[in-house]
């Protein structure tokens, strides 16, 4: 990738071993929606030495303001070559479980927090509570299952978290739990739980540590994204930004389709593809992206030769869904690292996609000027 000589934007920080180590720590931490403390602790540790103002708000969002260099832009104007107040949001929470009933002897009934398919829970080890008490979600032995039952889906109601007979006192009703998967490198890929959205959190920490100097960076490490974009909503109110980007991780449903005797059906609903670069959002179920921002991201990627893909317009949502409707309205867009098998025990993503996503957001921020908003939407 060539540096952008013409525009003279600074070279972005590299996603290197330090960032990978940070991502690993973040992915292995457990932070189910509403209980984000473990990730919040890492975020605070990482940003405090680098940021002017760091606050934790009423919902638990971490709000970091980092003033840029150059002329301040008047609040009510969008004219001139001055600093924009730019909000970046990455959610700290992940999908998981809460223990809802103690059936005795270490067996607990549980409910899901966020979008989880019961079929993905069977036979998985989990960590429970702040102490990461180990447990498992078991299944009936195949030997005791009828042929007919084998074709029926397993329901959430039939599943239990089991910490082992005699260990009942180690877990309690109300405790959160999540998959116990540990981060791993797979050749060009990364495997972990909670890549959605620890990619965003790791990127945003890196931006706070080495921000593009031309903007006022308003970094929101948000809570409760997976249960209704709750944290981003109040964070956007507090920050009152002029423009916002959500940094997230979006499904890559790019698996090969089943082949029939008539041949292979085309996979037309892939959402994004692994290895094709950062996913730029045009529309999802909660946001119609600001077209000026979409254009800006595409033009930046093309100017710098960064690979990118347009996420297939459709379902899903990010913090942008709450941010863009805050106050008088905030021009917003999302940019995601594509990831396979999100909201399961083990997601897979390509390291290069993360590197390119980070390069794109960094360059796009560096090139961001109030002129962009001189045009009507």
């Amino acid at each position, binding site marked *: 990738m060539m540096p952008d000589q013409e525009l003279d934007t600074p070279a972005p920080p590299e996603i290197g071993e330090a960032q990978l180590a940070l991502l690993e720590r973040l992915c292995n931490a457990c932070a189910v929606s509403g209980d984000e403390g473990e990730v919040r602790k890492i975020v605070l540790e990482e940003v405090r030495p680098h940021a002017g103002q760091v606050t934790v708000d009423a919902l638990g969002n971490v709000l970091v303001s980092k003033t840029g260099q150059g002329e301040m832009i008047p609040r009510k104007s969008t004219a001139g070559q001055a600093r924009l107040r730019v909000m970046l949001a990455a959610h700290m929470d992940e999908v998981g479980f809460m223990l809802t009933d103690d059936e005795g002897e270490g067996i607990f009934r549980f409910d899901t927090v966020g979008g989880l398919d019961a079929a993905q829970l069977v036979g998985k080890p989990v960590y429970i509570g702040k102490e990461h008490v180990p447990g498992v979600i078991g299944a009936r032995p195949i030997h005791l299952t009828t042929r007919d039952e084998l074709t029926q889906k397993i329901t959430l109601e039939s599943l239990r978290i089991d910490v082992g007979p005699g260990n009942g006192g180690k877990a309690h009703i109300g405790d959160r739990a999540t998959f116990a*998967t540990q981060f791993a490198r797979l050749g060009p890929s990364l495997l972990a739980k909670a890549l959605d959205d620890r990619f965003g959190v790791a990127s945003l920490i890196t931006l706070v540590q080495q921000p593009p100097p031309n903007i006022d960076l308003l970094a929101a490490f948000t809570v409760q994204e997976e249960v209704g974009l709750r944290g981003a909503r109040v964070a956007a109110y507090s920050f009152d930004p002029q423009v916002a980007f959500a940094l997230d991780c979006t499904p890559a449903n790019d698996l090969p389709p*089943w082949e029939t005797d008539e041949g292979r059906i085309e996979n037309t609903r892939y959402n994004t593809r692994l290895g094709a670069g950062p996913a730029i959002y045009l529309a999802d179920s909660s946001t119609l992206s600001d077209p000026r921002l979409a254009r800006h991201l595409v033009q930046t990627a093309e100017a710098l030769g960064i690979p990118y893909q347009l996420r297939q317009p459709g379902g899903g949502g990010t913090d942008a869904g709450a941010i863009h409707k805050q106050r008088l309205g905030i021009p917003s867009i999302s940019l995601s690292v594509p990831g396979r098998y999100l909201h399961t025990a083990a997601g897979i993503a390509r390291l290069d996609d993360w590197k390119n996503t980070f390069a794109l957001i960094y360059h796009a921020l560096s090139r961001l000027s109030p002129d962009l908003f001189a045009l009507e939407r």
Partner: protein
Amino acid sequence: MPDLQSFLKTLISTSGLSGHEAPVRCLIEAAWQPLVDETAISRLGSLHGLKRGSGPEPRPGLLLAAHMDAIGMMVTGHSDGLLRVTEIGGLDPRVLPGQLVTVHGRQDFPGVVVQPPSHLLPPEVSGKTAPLETLLVDIGLLPEQATQEVQVGDLVSFAQPPIELSDDLLAGHSLDNRASVAAVTHCLELLQGRSLQWDLWAVASTQEEETLGGALTSAFALRPALAVAIDVTFGAGPGSPSHKTFPLGGGITLGWGPNIHPALFNAFKELAERLEIPYKLEAMPHHSGTDAYAMQVVAEGLPTMVVSIPLRYMHTPVEMVSLKDIRRAGRLLAEFAALLDDKFMEKLAW
């Protein structure tokens, strides 16, 4: 040898799918060598450890068979860099999506079993469980790397690390039947320094999950007077019917049914009572589902017995056992070997 929990953790962290048991066999052989007089490998790959008796020749032999093979998968093809697989041993496809695995290609590759979204599955699967042939294994490689590094026929092991739930409880894959290998090892340790009248053959058998071929051929080769299969049985737990299961940590089970010689059952029962080892009778009304089924009909026929260790969530990667039960099984087997004398076979009258 390290303590039982560490040994068992190493055992389940070492691959050895049915028909390909060599990695785990090496580990077991190293553990047994100091405990027996000699070791040998059978033609089908089973490990034989002989602790020679002191009685007059020809000495009768007691065979303890614990199968060492594990269930897993085998690669059947490539699809855009992902792998198609089939099962080795009985797998419930509903347990597989999201499971961590190791693909034994040109080198070991970590990966995960994945279920494609429903619109990429055959229409007849809609609303039902995706069968194994529609699942894929993703090892994170680019398509050209994957075809180069992994071949059809390569093995796929479960890779979930062992989970220590407490000092007594261990969860993980392949505890069926490495738990019993640990029990036989514990038995050999308890017999250190003790003299037996009979020969004792400890056998880590192969291919139990597919063909029972290991125990069948080892029993033929060794021609013991008695053969005992040590295996796991269904532990009571969520989702399992209580009338077919046994409490974890509540003791061992003694099998009862056509695969079991009733007088041999009685001998084990009396011994367990004398040693105050808690046990339950496990009704096995037809096929015992163990090596005993094969060993019973070796040559002119053998008196066989089944001793089992309760285990939760059998054939999932989160099987759970109690080390107490493993020790109990080891102790019962050791004391049984020690009581065998020149009169014992006379007691096996019908």
